[in-house]
């Protein structure tokens, strides 16, 4: 019973929050509701008993991804509404509607099918962290490694991009000799 209550409650809240995310003109509301929605999604994982995934959902989406979004939002005036420029509106609605429809179809499919079965069912007595680990490092080893390499590449690329002008100080006046005067005097001695 608790699961049912929790499920419908979470569902309603999640949809509501994501609606706010989409509809709100205020970045702060959008971001807050998105993050809150993510938290609630982790709730579904917990209901399903997938504690590990729930926590990962929390850490990755709420803790990392959303925080990165919020970084970007620091550069906006968060207290002011955003002027949206969604022209032509019909196109936006059309595309949005279509993708929503596709998603609904995709996820509605299993409801009418008995064919969907867990390929790797949970093992009794084993924590689901181990279960996830086993799947990842056996069946999905290659995609996992590829994903890891891709992340590595992205990371290196990011560092290189960011590190291009790292030796230049933004605050220091470059017109002045940038060596430490006192230390130079001391070195001379």
């Amino acid at each position, binding site marked *: 019973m608790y699961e049912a209550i*929790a499920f419908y409650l979470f569902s309603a*809240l999640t949809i509501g929050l994501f609606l706010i995310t989409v509809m709100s003109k205020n970045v702060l509301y959008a971001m807050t509701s998105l993050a809150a929605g993510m938290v609630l999604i982790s709730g579904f994982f*917990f209901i399903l008993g997938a504690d590990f995934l729930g926590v990962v959902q*929390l*850490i990755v989406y709420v*803790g990392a991804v959303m925080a990165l979004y919020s970084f970007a939002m620091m550069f906006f005036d968060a*207290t002011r509404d955003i002027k949206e420029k969604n022209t032509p509106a019909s196109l936006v609605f059309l595309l949005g509607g279509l993708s929503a429809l596709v998603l609904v179809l995709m996820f509605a499919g299993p409801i009418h099918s008995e064919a969907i079965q867990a390929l790797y069912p949970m093992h009794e007595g084993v*924590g*689901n*962290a181990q279960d996830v680990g086993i799947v990842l490092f056996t069946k999905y080893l290659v995609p996992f490694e590829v994903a890891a390499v891709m992340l590595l590449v992205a990371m290196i690329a990011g560092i290189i991009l960011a590190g291009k002008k790292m030796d230049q100080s933004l605050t220091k006046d470059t017109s002045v000799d940038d060596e430490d005067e006192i230390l130079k005097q001391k070195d001379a001695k």
Partner: protein
Amino acid sequence: MEVVSYRNVETFVQHIPEVTALGVWIKAIIILAVISAIAGFGTYVERKVLAFMQRRLGPMHVGPYGLLQIIADGIKLFTKEDIVPQNANRFIFMVAPVITAATAFIALAAVPVFPDFTIPEWIPVIGGTFVPSIASDLNVGILFVLGMMAAGLYGPLLAGMAQANKWGIIGAARTAIQFLSYEVVTGLSILAPIMIVGSLSFVDFNAAQAGGVANWLVWKQPVAFILFLIAGFAETNRTPFDLLEHEAEVVSGYATEYSGMRWGMFFIGEYANMITISVIAAIVFLGGYSTEGLGWLWIMLKIAFFFFLMLWVRAAWPHVRPDQLMWLCWKVLMPIAVINVVITGIVMMV
């Protein structure tokens, strides 16, 4: 949000057979009440310890030895005017402190805080109820705590962004950077003990170290311990990493525009986080608790030591510059943590 979270807790607790929902409720209330009180008491302890270290007396006038100072502070916080700045985003501004406090307490749901006990039979209604030590014994307890603390970032972040104050936004930016960065170190540093124990559950950690001081993980993972402590200081915004609210630089950071109990909630959240970190450090590295005899007293002392350490450090050390903070995180601590994980893995393989 608070309410929702506690229902959450309640829901999955049902899987544990001997723990009843009532017991969890009682535990939740105990945590909420006691930790809040301890957070308040923590301020008193902090003031006293800092005072003693500077050879002062600290609060002395309210109650014997100033013990009732927290009550006075509480009255003050509750009765102060609740100011919302004119240009602030009112809703977010008001909800932000709640996020901080709530996440801090949710994190405590997965942490064994007090010993489990059974309420005596003669008490009506709740008599005979078993109250567990952990409100929710998740098998991914450690990750849950870390995740919840990560979610706690939103409190300061939203507070800073909502208050239409430049110090607030700078404070928020600092919060985001610091929390995100040090979360990496926290996670990586604790990964090595997790590898050794092979579980994410606090109970397993406790069991793995049972049998005396020699079995403590700190001896096997001293580097991880130190890294975790450093990162813990950063995550709880303690000196030497208290840049978020550093008044000489950013007035009061994300809390600049807050007053009264809203500010108090940030405060309670911070102290709850301090307790959480202390508890994790005690359980993961210092052997945790023992259910027999004075075992619970021991873990209390360990937690108290970490709490004290935070105050001690505050009394002794200056804080670092923001750039030093980031440099330390990404260029020193993270590589060391990674190396530590690798070495641990290699050792385990061999």
